[in-house]
């Protein structure tokens, strides 16, 4: 059964027809060709498919594409316009080697964006809880934590107007 879905992804409007069986992660990748969202486990454990739905991180493998109708989504593609203009969080991950294979990175970066929106100066403990929904099988997390600490410093040192805000909606906590 096909259903029409109207979504806003990275501030762009899309009208697509999807099979009711399609999950949101597949819609983003296969229909909208936004392949920055990765699928790891497909069952809500690994967080590689993390996107922002109405301003809050969710796992897009656990949401039916049809159920995203009328919603606003931000994917990793929405954070920067290209390798020359990376988001400060992405830059911090590059600078601090916060990745090895990179498969978990889009999810990690979006979870970091959520964390720093909720808590601009997180403790190490808060960082580890903040990324508890994202598995990394390469790094052992140490450099990821360091990247997030550095990203927080960079963002906090900038004047308020130029701070990158998480997608629009206020935090739910």
């Amino acid at each position, binding site marked *: 059964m096909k259903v029409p879905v109207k979504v806003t992804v990275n501030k762009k409007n899309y009208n697509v027809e999807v099979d009711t069986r399609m999950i949101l992660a597949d819609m983003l990748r296969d229909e909208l060709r936004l392949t920055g969202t990765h699928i790891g486990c497909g069952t*809500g*454990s690994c967080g590689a498919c993390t996107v922002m*739905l109405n301003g809050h991180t969710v796992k897009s493998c656990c949401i*039916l594409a049809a159920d995203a109708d009328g919603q606003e989504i931000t994917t990793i593609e929405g954070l920067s316009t290209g390798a020359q203009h990376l988001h400060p969080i992405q830059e911090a991950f590059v600078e601090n080697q916060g990745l090895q294979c990179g498969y978990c990175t889009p999810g990690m970066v979006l979870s970091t964006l959520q964390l720093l929106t909720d808590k601009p100066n997180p403790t190490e403990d808060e960082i580890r809880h903040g990324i*508890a*929904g994202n598995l990394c099988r390469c790094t052992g997390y140490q450099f990821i934590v360091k990247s997030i600490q550095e990203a927080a410093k960079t963002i906090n040192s900038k004047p308020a107007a130029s701070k990158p805000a998480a997608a629009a909606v206020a935090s*739910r*906590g």
Partner: protein
Amino acid sequence: MISQEFEFHAPKQLSEALNLLQRYGDDAKVLAGGMSLVPLMTLGLLQPKVVVSFNHIRELDYVNEDKGMLRIGAMTRHSTIRANPLIGRHCPLLSEAASYVGDVQVRHRGTIGGSVAHADPAADYPPVMLVVGAQVKLQSAKGERVVKMENFLKGLMQTDLLPGELLTEIQIPKLPDGAGSSYQRLHRVEGNFAIVNAAAVIEKGFKSARLGLGGVGETAILVDVTKRLGKGVNDEALRGVSDDAYAASHDAYGDLNGDADYRKAMARIYAQRVTKAAAARMS
């Protein structure tokens, strides 16, 4: 892609949704947050013919206070439960329980109604709901009824819900003044279901003391330990609480996270911990 074909509905009004559940009966599956349902469908373990999503029904997302009672809409997300000031003031152990559910992403999407209706034996809310004397409102196109939590939980992922019925509201009496409460859980990996979890509410002056235990039976279990705490919290009282928790866990199951004996032993420990913590918070 989920392999099994199904029909999908995303009504915007509760009345419309209840009519759909009435029409499709047993064939329909309710999609709340989807944190359990969607993976189960992806894995092919559940193959509903019809899925009715409640994510677009705004009228089921609320937290109100009314006549000594907290009323929580079934579609309220865990992140809201965790941060809501009314819940923090009148049922702080529910906020504590919500902070353990899944991870950040899961808490943003998962709902209290979905979790309670899913009735996992080690879920975070049931022990809390038992000790605070919560009840659930079940609505269908034909009417509504209110069921106490202990009567709602029927068995392993089994509830009192009938085909066509939906859990629409959680009703929680505010904790009495001066009562102390605590929720704690044992887990190896953050984000996993608890191996054992426990909640306690102790009324001022040890007037009453109740324990809720999860992970040690087909459903969460309510244990009244008022008699054990007649003289306050001392070693003998805690031994008594521990014995009661052990006895109540006689139907404990085993899985790869812990066998039945381990769970029973941990029920002793966690019963004591929440009792001590709740007593310390009593005023």
